[in-house]
């Protein structure tokens, strides 16, 4: 079986297995063992099967497309990409310096990634539009499958331990009923794993999707799954509000995404990524429309968009050639290039890119739609881990990465700035948060900002590389925090401290996670996974700011963000695990979590360390991703609306001068952050309270999360509520009252009708019946039963008849 048919089969099965688990638990969950205990096994087995299938696909992929150190432009120097990721790269670096100038001038044309695409099932087909359930599989897809299913498997195993409370009736101490008691409800163990399975299915659907319509379908499915899971404790007011908030904020982003989809469909008539066949006819996909092979995959506005934007001119030509349409078509075709050079249609491509990015802003919690993510902490901790690492928030970054060839440099600049703002704001909020999960939530938002920024400054590989490594260490961090919460029954870090002694495994693995997220490593020698991915982001940002001095703030945002990250992550670790217990009651009752929860922590900790490594010979995630690099994105580009903008090619950042600076910056900022955290929370040389008092206004601003919730409430929520209550009052006061009036009038008329019916119509009928009845009663008396009387009647009657006849017929007899 060749790879082209094998991969869709393996990954398709890996995608559908969680769906099967969802359906099975949906229908038979409560019957699976006592209290549905075995539902956890069903879901875990399903996702583990997915993992095995994905791994098989991964192995087959590697067998056919061996990962090698990437050779840039045929220079024969494989050091550059390897240098970004190779733990053993000191040797390579010297080489990099030697070839630096060559790399700067290298041009790369004609490179095209290996990708397999096709359709399983066509939903709708009309004209050139084909909506289908299909696949687009390249190295990125395969890698994402392995990453998602691996993390999801760990989280499933962990959750089967974490959620054991739900196996019997639960008394929810956070819900106060009207009678002063706490809410007592049946456990929802099955329901949790059911939603988890659906969540995995939806996320894998986004990753495997072969067209934007399918992405959108699963995009929304992920949204509804997050609503189920964040609102898992829906009796709690905060949880149901958080679930609604996540859902509604995502809808705002999806509105933009719909606009983007419409722009693409309206102008290009297709939503497929790759070339595909429609009714046996080969049609170009989005990627080859925007970056045709004829131009060496250089970005250009597709013909469809140019003609769409120049609709007036096209119409004029069509009218002029109304007698000969073919000549009109020919003339338009001849003018397309001219219009394109004038920039016609640029805005449409810009709108399409920004629109799709809007969806990603919602899903990946970017500024200004990041407010839902910290609230999403209301869900159970395994859900937070899944939502914040491998699924949901990853979807946005993944889509930007997948859609990358269509994004113009102008769109990328917007993405970069959005990422920078997000990373800065959320990092500052994380500095002062005291809820352990909220710190992690804001760090997630911040790291997502990193990824977006990386993608925006041209670091396609850097952004997606960080997505993968971040998924490992962020899920690890969340599961560790879940373990802590499980032991302490509180989220407040101020009540923790000194837990390292009672929870050594959790403390150790969380330390690994913290080191990974700050990108710790020995510069130029070896490091955790974050070290590599963060370095490549910094390098790309530096390369970008060198090319565009006007936008150098982006680099400082990244560097400053690294400092903040290091500080707040170690603040978290120190406050939780180091020192002496602040609350002895909690510390005495704390305990290490069961093995079923610790095992996934260790597995993820290992991955958090090694995920970024590149083995000798070139095998590593970075080089694997390089195989999927979209055609034409390895040469950088220039802005159209921002005419001075120049996106540098990613390999330029591997140049020694840039890379050494970036690595040193990363190392020093991280070290400074950790040192600062240690000064404040371990050695207590600086009092956090004093610092807070010194910067009182700033501290207030940060601890109130920049007043984003309040601002949104005042700007958007309140007006919407006001309009809604106005509408509601109109509805109740005017429309309902009118309808009530009509109903009242109808009722009155009906009353009159009823009176007429009962009195007159019924009266007549009854009167007739009564008369008949009474007559009958009277006549009855004639039936005396006396034979002789009857005879007399007959005789008298006969006589009477004769008399009558003789009287009446007198004249007849006369003749």
């Amino acid at each position, binding site marked *: 079986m060749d790879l082209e048919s094998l991969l869709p089969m393996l990954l398709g099965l890996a995608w559908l297995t969680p769906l099967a688990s969802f359906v099975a638990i949906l229908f038979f969950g409560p019957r699976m063992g006592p209290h549905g205990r075995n539902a956890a096994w069903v879901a875990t087995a399903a996702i583990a099967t997915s993992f095995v299938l994905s791994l098989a696909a991964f192995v087959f992929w590697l067998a056919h497309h061996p990962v090698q150190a990437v050779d840039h432009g045929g220079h024969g120097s494989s050091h550059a990409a390897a240098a970004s990721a190779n733990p053993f790269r000191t040797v390579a670096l010297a080489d990099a310096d030697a070839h630096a100038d060559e790399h700067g001038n290298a041009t790369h044309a004609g490179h095209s990634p290996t990708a397999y695409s096709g359709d399983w099932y066509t939903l709708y087909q009309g004209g050139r539009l084909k909506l289908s359930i299909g696949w687009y599989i390249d190295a990125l897809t395969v890698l994402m499958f392995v990453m998602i299913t691996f993390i999801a498997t760990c989280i499933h195993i962990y959750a089967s331990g974490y959620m054991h409370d739900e196996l019997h009736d639960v008394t929810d101490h956070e819900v106060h009923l009207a009678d002063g008691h706490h809410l007592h409800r049946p456990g929802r163990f099955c329901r949790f794993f059911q939603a988890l399975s659906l969540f995995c299915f939806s996320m894998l659907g986004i990753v495997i999707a072969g067209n934007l319509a399918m992405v959108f379908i699963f995009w929304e499915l992920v949204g509804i799954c997050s609503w189920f899971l964040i609102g898992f404790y829906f009796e709690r007011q905060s949880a149901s509000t958080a679930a609604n908030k996540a859902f509604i904020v995502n809808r705002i982003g999806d509105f933009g995404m719909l606009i983007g989809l419409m722009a693409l469909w309206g102008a290009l008539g297709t939503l497929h990524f790759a070339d595909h066949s429609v009714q046996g006819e080969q049609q170009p996909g989005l990627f080859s429309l925007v970056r045709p092979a004829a131009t060496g995959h250089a970005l250009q506005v597709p013909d469809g968009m140019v003609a769409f934007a120049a609709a007036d001119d096209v119409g004029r030509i069509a009218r002029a050639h109304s007698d000969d349409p073919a000549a009109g078509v020919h003339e338009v075709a001849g003018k397309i290039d001219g219009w394109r050079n004038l920039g016609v249609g640029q805005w449409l491509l810009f709108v399409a890119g920004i629109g799709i990015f809007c969806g990603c802003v919602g899903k990946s919690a970017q500024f200004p739609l990041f407010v839902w993510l910290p609230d999403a902490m209301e869900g159970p901790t395994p859900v937070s881990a899944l939502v914040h690492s491998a699924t949901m928030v990853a979807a946005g970054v993944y889509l930007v990465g997948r859609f990358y060839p269509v994004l113009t440099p102008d769109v990328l600049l917007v993405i970069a700035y959005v990422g920078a703002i997000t990373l800065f704001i959320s990092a500052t909020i994380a500095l002062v948060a005291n809820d352990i999960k909220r710190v992690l939530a804001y760090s997630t938002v911040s790291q997502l900002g990193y990824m977006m920024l990386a993608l925006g400054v041209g670091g396609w590989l850097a952004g997606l590389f960080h997505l993968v490594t971040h998924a490992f260490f962020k899920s690890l961090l969340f599961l560790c925090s879940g373990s802590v919460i499980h032991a302490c029954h509180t989220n407040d870090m101020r009540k923790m401290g000194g837990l390292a002694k009672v929870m050594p495994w959790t403390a150790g693995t969380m330390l690994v996670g913290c080191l990974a997220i700050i990108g710790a490593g020995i510069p130029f020698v070896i490091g955790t996974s974050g070290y590599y991915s963060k370095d490549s982001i910094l390098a790309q940002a530096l390369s970008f700011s060198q090319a565009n001095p006007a936008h150098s703030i982006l680099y400082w945002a990244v560097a400053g963000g690294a400092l903040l990250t290091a500080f707040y992550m170690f603040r978290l670790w120190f406050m939780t695990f180091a020192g002496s217990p602040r609350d002895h009651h909690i510390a005495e009752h704390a305990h290490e979590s069961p093995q079923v929860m610790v095992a996934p922590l260790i597995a993820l900790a290992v991955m958090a360390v090694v995920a970024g490594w590149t083995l000798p010979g070139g095998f590593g995630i970075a080089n694997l991703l390089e195989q999927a690099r979209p055609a034409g994105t390895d040469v950088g580009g220039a802005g159209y609306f921002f005419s001075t903008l120049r996106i540098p090619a990613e390999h330029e950042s591997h140049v020694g001068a840039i890379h050494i600076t970036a690595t040193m910056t990363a190392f020093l900022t991280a070290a400074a952050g950790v040192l600062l955290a240690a000064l404040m929370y371990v050695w207590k040389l600086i009092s956090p309270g004093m610092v807070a008092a010194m910067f009182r206004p700033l501290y207030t601003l940060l601890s109130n999360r920049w007043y984003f919730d309040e601002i949104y409430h005042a700007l958007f929520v309140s007006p919407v509520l006001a309009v809604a209550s106005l509408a509601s009052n109109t509805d109740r006061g005017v429309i309902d009252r009118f309808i009530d009036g009509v109903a009242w009038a109808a009722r009155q008329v009906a009353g009159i009708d009823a009176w007429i019916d009962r009195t007159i119509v019924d009266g007549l009928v009854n009167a007739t019946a009564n008369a008949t009845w009474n007559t009958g009663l009277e006549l009855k008396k004639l039936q005396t*039963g006396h034979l*002789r009387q009857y005879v007399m009647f007959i005789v008298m009657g006969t006589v009477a008849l004769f008399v009558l006849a003789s009287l009446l017929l007198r004249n007849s007899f006369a003749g």
Partner: protein
Amino acid sequence: MNIVSLSAGCCLFATGPLTEPVGVVHYLIVGAILFTAGVVCMALKRNALGVLMGIELVLNGANLNFVAFSSPYLRGAGSATLGLDGQVIALFVILLAAAEAAVALAITLNFYNNHSTVDIDRADDLKG
């Protein structure tokens, strides 16, 4: 013509007895007397058997009429029939009267068994 002779008979009967030969009118008179006697008997008798006898009288009065009206004097010449219609119907009536008497006697017998009497004034179970 028939009606004329009928009225002539009536006039003869009125003028004096037996001055004319016996005609149709005489039969009719006897029939009428029989019929009236029967009806009076039915109306006045309380004994069921008496009533039955009255019925027989009524039927036979009617029979006499049939026979009388079938007289050749009342029938025009040239009739296609044999001239025995009245007699035939009278035979039918006798037959039916016999059958009716049998049924009526059975009813009476049963009534007697149930009520120990044949007084028809007591037979008022079917009154309205």
